[in-house]
């Protein structure tokens, strides 16, 4: 289902509005933020798969299969040594195929992760549903219902509204008398800055 929910940010970085918080009265709304980089936006299934043909990913596929084949070859070498009378080689004969299998599982999961990232912006189905429901219920509210009168400009998107609410809440939240809370908020701000940098760099196709 295509949802009118907000463009996803990092998982766990939930918008304050979705946890039942309201904007403090009297705080000014900042201007809406520019849209995020394309890489962070969810894509349809067909397009989301296309990354597997990109040169960096092809190199990754070749590397993964070379590693797995190398491990199988090592297993075969240990098998021949074991047949030659080296008893301890039996242990490694069974170990190398296990590692080869693990390498392939690891490779497959990097592809699945990247697909999910592109398809859903890295969010789980549950989180997507939760955000969509929250955004829908917000959009269904009569204008200004949750906010002090006149604070929600007409024509503002839900995304812009939520970003604004978050910014306003952050601005109004006084953590000066609670060092632990201040540390937590500083940590959140750092994580947020990192995600923004990541979103800016997400246009480049990369494995790392």
């Amino acid at each position, binding site marked *: 289902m295509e949802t009118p929910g907000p463009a996803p940010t990092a*998982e*766990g970085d939930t918008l304050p509005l979705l*946890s*039942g*918080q*309201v904007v403090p009265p009297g705080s000014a709304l900042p201007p809406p933020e520019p849209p995020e980089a394309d890489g962070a936006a969810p894509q349809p299934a067909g397009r989301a798969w296309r990354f597997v043909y990109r040169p960096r990913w092809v190199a990754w596929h070749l590397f993964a299969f070379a590693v797995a084949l190398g491990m199988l070859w090592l297993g075969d070498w240990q098998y021949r040594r074991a047949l030659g009378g080296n008893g*301890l080689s039996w*242990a*490694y004969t069974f*170990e190398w195929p*296990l*590692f080869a299998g*693990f390498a392939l599982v*690891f490779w497959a999961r*990097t592809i699945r992760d990247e697909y999910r990232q592109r398809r859903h912006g890295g969010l789980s189905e549950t989180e997507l549903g939760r955000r969509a429901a929250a955004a829908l219920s917000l959009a269904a509210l009569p204008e200004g219902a949750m906010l002090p009168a006149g604070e929600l400009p007409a024509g503002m998107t839900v995304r812009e509204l939520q970003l604004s609410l978050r910014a306003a809440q952050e601005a109004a939240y006084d953590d000066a008398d609670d060092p*632990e*809370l201040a*540390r*937590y908020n500083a*940590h959140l701000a750092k994580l947020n800055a990192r995600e923004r940098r990541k979103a800016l760099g997400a246009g480049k196709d990369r*494995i*790392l």
Partner: protein
Amino acid sequence: MRGAVLRYRVMAYITGVLIIVICFVGLPLQFAAHNNWIDQWLGTVHGYLYIVYVIFAYLLSRKLKMRTWPTVLLLLAGTIPVLTFLVERWMTRTYIAPALADDAAGAAQQPVSR
């Protein structure tokens, strides 16, 4: 989260110590005294404990949402002497400590939220 971290740390120290014994005791013994008992048997033991290490380290890397190459480094750390301990410290600094702090802060934050 704490369980996954503990399982990873226990296996990191076991494989880390084993590989140091193999490389810095076993190899000199093999070449100086032509005694390869330590290398052969501890090598096999390390090989199988390394499988357990790989499993726990991989599960932890999924929990911490680590990217591909840091995860590869984490998994290979169990095979290179001393690197196991360096990587364990790096993991704690870069991934584990922030994640645990997040968990604790999240729990502490719950009653505060309005």
